[in-house]
């Protein structure tokens, strides 16, 4: 456990040293400047529009940065032969995977709540200028939890791909593919229930069902609309979404560990 935590600590330190982290910080300051501009463009329900912008920006920034970081640091490990060095030490391969995972997730946690903490005061200030819709500060930070679970799942998927291949570009496309499928699968399932969907060939429907049961349903973590408009706020469904995310992440991570144990590292 000590080695896992030590690796996690090193991962966080490496992530903070990355230039992309500072770029995101600057982008966040620019996003904050965009809030008053957005305010002046908004016709109605100002708090909702500003909330939508703040949460969407946080979502986008964290996803892009984490994907970049995971790929970049993994590539660095391979290029500088750090990975071979680490594996030659008396450290279990699984500790490396768990340590990296914990480090990335912990860094994502800092990033998410840091960005939200910067944006919330400005959103709150402008929302109070035209309070024609409710403003729930608690929901901002609750959204951060869902985003964190989604990021953790994607990080686990990235580590899984990196366990399969040493080419980070392949891993990046793999993660991007999972992201796209994960977010569109709900719509596809809905389409299959329509008249046009029912007329699809049986083989196509079977493939879609298989894909549905293999790929993670990331749409469960897209709770922005629910929080902004107070729709679908049933506590049980939110809890089940979180539980789903945690379970799926654990399974993917264990898969990554199993594959990494047998991976040829050279």
């Amino acid at each position: 456990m000590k080695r896992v935590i030590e690796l996690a600590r090193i991962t966080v330190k490496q992530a903070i040293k990355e230039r992309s982290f500072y770029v995101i910080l600057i982008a966040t300051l620019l996003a904050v400047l965009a809030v008053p501009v957005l305010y002046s463009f908004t016709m109605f329900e100002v708090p909702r529009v500003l909330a939508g912008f703040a949460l969407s920006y946080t979502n986008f920034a964290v996803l892009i940065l984490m994907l970049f970081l995971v790929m970049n640091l993994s590539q660095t490990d391979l290029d500088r032969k750090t990975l071979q060095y680490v594996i030659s030490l008396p450290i279990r391969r699984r500790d490396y995977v768990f340590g990296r995972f914990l480090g990335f997730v912990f860094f994502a946690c800092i990033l998410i709540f840091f960005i939200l903490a910067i944006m919330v005061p400005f959103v709150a200030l402008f929302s109070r200028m035209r309070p024609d819709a409710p403003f729930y500060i608690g929901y901002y930070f609750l959204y951060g939890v869902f985003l964190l679970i989604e990021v953790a799942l994607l990080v686990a998927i990235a580590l899984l791909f990196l366990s399969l291949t040493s080419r980070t570009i392949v891993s990046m496309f793999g993660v991007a593919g999972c992201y796209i499928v994960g977010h569109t699968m709900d719509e596809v399932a809905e389409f299959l229930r329509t008249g046009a969907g029912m007329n699809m060939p049986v083989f196509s429907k079977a493939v879609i069902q298989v894909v549905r049961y293999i790929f993670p349903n990331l749409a469960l973590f897209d709770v922005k609309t629910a929080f902004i408009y107070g729709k679908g706020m049933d506590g049980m469904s939110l809890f089940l979404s979180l539980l789903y995310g945690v379970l799926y992440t654990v399974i993917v991570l264990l898969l990554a560990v199993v594959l990494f144990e047998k991976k040829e590292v050279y």
Partner: protein
Amino acid sequence: MKSKGGRLLIVFILVLLMIGVNYFFDKPQVRLKGREEAERFRLYANPSFEKWSGFEFTFLKAFYYTLGLRVYMGKLSEEYLAPPPFAKDPIVRTAEVVTRLCPYYYDIYYIANGYLTWDYGDVETANRLLEKGLEYTPERWIYYLYLGFNHFYFLKDYEKGAMYLVKASEVSGKPQYAHLASKLLYASGRTEVAIGILKGMIENTRDEGWKRGLETRLKALEGIYELEKAVEVFRERFGTLPQNLEELKNAGIIKGIPEDPYGGEFYIDEEGNVRTTSNLTYMD
């Protein structure tokens, strides 16, 4: 130049050149486009595909598309006194896409309803969009208000309009829309329907203050309805309209002239309609 200062100077010059190129090509680009090009609006994919391709950012996409429509209509307003016919299609397409992306987003319903009813006379499409909005946000009473107004003013479907206004009152908790419905029905010659609606409202209203207001309105309309029936009997009996309410009394059709609870006086206008000097509002 290998020195740091030299490199910085080259970078600075290149940045200036970049800004210069953007500035130089900015105005001619707009002129080259021509009016027809500038009046074209963006193309959308199928609304379902727009939603798929929005992933987690459908709200932002909805906001962006709506903003684009507002900018487009704003530009057209500089060239045309009224929205031109070709602008209707962008409004409808944007509304279809945005309500698919985020059916809770209010601005698009407001914009589409405003343009489609007043400028293009397409009340049915406007009403269809509002009904869609109500599917997702049934608590948004303003949609009922818009639907009520559209039915009353544009479609002349007074009963359906009144139904929506009453619903607006129920959902918002503001009785003035039910009052408005009854007033509009009375003005359009549907006093009996107005009375029915008010009775329903009084039954369902718990607030005593509002109930009193509704009961006052009901009393006034019941008085008017009694006089309207009496005018009809007079017309059937004598083949002509009465000149004033006294003639109804003298003909033995009514025993007395009802009192207007708003403090006004009932009278018969030139077309034989029963009116009141109070106009169904309290007189000072």
